[in-house]
């Protein structure tokens, strides 16, 4: 049986590191070319579902979800709210622009959702958030450009979709 090139890298990235694969990476290309193979490979070997979108991919499992996901949602939620409040073009800002950690920190500090952040141990203060940013970077949700600037990778769309779905299902409930 022949495995695709980069097979080990693909498995390592998705399974071991639990990170997002992004368009432009060699592993993503391999995944794209052997999509059927990898879909069944991950289901049969590890019981996980490969989620493949136009510009990002990751593994999803119903059994074990990382608590990190909640931290990301809270962070994204507060950040989106603050960006919008400051009059930024939300989608444009997240998809195409760079952000500064200083600026983000400032926004989070004065946010009306501070209580929520303080109740989340990984986001409660600047020091723990620095750690959190590193984890975001490790999962390829953000890309650090230098010490102070970063930008979101296409993986952030996964969380925006999540928010959209909440809004839609709430709306349906109301109707």
């Amino acid at each position, binding site marked *: 049986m022949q495995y695709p090139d980069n097979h080990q890298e693909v498995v390592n990235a998705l399974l071991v590191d639990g990170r997002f694969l992004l368009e432009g990476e060699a592993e993503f290309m391999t995944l794209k070319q052997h999509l059927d193979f990898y879909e069944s490979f991950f289901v049969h070997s590890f019981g996980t579902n490969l989620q493949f979108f136009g510009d990002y991919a990751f593994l999803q499992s*119903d059994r074990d979800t990382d608590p990190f996901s909640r931290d990301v949602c809270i962070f994204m939620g507060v950040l989106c709210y603050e960006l919008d409040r400051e009059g930024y073009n939300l989608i*444009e800002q997240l998809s195409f622009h760079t952000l500064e950690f200083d600026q983000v920190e400032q926004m989070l500090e004065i946010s009306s959702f501070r209580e929520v952040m303080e109740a989340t141990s990984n986001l409660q203060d600047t020091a723990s958030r620095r750690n959190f940013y590193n984890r975001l970077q490790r999962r390829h949700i953000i890309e650090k450009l230098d010490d102070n600037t970063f930008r979101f990778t296409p993986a952030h769309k996964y969380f925006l979709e999540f928010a959209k779905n909440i809004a839609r299902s709430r709306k349906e409930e109301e109707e």
Partner: protein
Amino acid sequence: MILKADPDKVLRFLEDNFELLSALYRVQLEHNLILQEQFDEMMASKANVVARRLFDYKLITAQANGFRLNEPVRSFMGFLLNEFKPLLPEELKKYYGGFNGLYERIRESSDGDILILAERLDAIYMEVQQFLENVESNTGQLLRASQHLKANKADYAYSERIRRARHLIEYYIEPLNRILDVQKENSIANLLNTVSSFVNIQRFQHPHTGIRTRFARLHELLRDVDRQVLRQSHIITRELLPLIERLQTESEILTGWLYFLERPLLNEVPPMPARRKFSITGSNIGASLHLFLQQFERRPKEIVFNEAETKSINRQHLYFDRKRYQKQLQAALPVSNYFSWCLDIMHQYEQMPDTERFLKISSLVFENGEQYEMVFSDERIELEMEDAVFDLPVIELKARSTSVAESSINSDHAVSR
């Protein structure tokens, strides 16, 4: 209609009372009618003569339950202020019937009566011109309405913004897009295209010169319309629709997050892969190590080490024990290579050996020169310090005859006493 004044006088009145007329226009734009109370309120601070002239000059007409600006005045004010209500696409659709009817008639009568053909051509020219103006002001107003919605987000709640955005898309922008879409069979743009190709042939074929000129003029206009419609259609697809859609998705995202943040620790979250550690030397060890080391990377930069400062401070505290070196030198005699002996002895006794210290030690021999006998050889030696390299002669040092040395030591004692 009898005007009770010269036209230029009316215009001057309009200029003098422009603010009043703009206010009237805006009220009518909003409510379709100027109610008696509203009218009275606006006229309260004006002289009676102003109100009378408004009616005398037929700028305003009385209606059953209020007043209206006369139609030509209304459209003129609209043009001046560039404020309209966007036309419902149904209103624009009436042009389809108009164009189609006139086009059919023109086709039928193109070989018949010259007079009626000329009149019909003039009519269609006017209609097309009007249509174009309407479309332009319409897209302009829609763009403005969307931008207003986007810019004044604080004024509307999220749900209200979505509702307004949907309303604009559903009832104005998409239908307008259908009207302007050349690809669609029943669109006005498509009909105008057909008319244009007919006119293009007629402007050469028709036997009558006057008619040919009219066809040519119409053709020019239709070509212009084609360009304009394309531009308006671009504004719609490139600016309006994305703008409105973005407004809608943004609002959706924010509404979603707000729902989520109401109960952030209880709501479900999207599944995300956990990291799996298979072995101690997994591929993430490298990354983690890098991360771990990263926190030290910046340390040296943060602690500023000022060399000049530290040195001068230490120098003050370090005492140069001349006597000790003198004794050492005496004990070591004869020395075969004086300078390298200096270097060795410095490294032996000094906590912070440096060039200056070395120079001090090597000057010992010159202080009590009469005690020593120096033999210079031709050889040279290179000694390396931290900040300099010395190229020095090899000197052999011996003690001079004892009597001379003793007498000099005695004389030293004499001086010190």
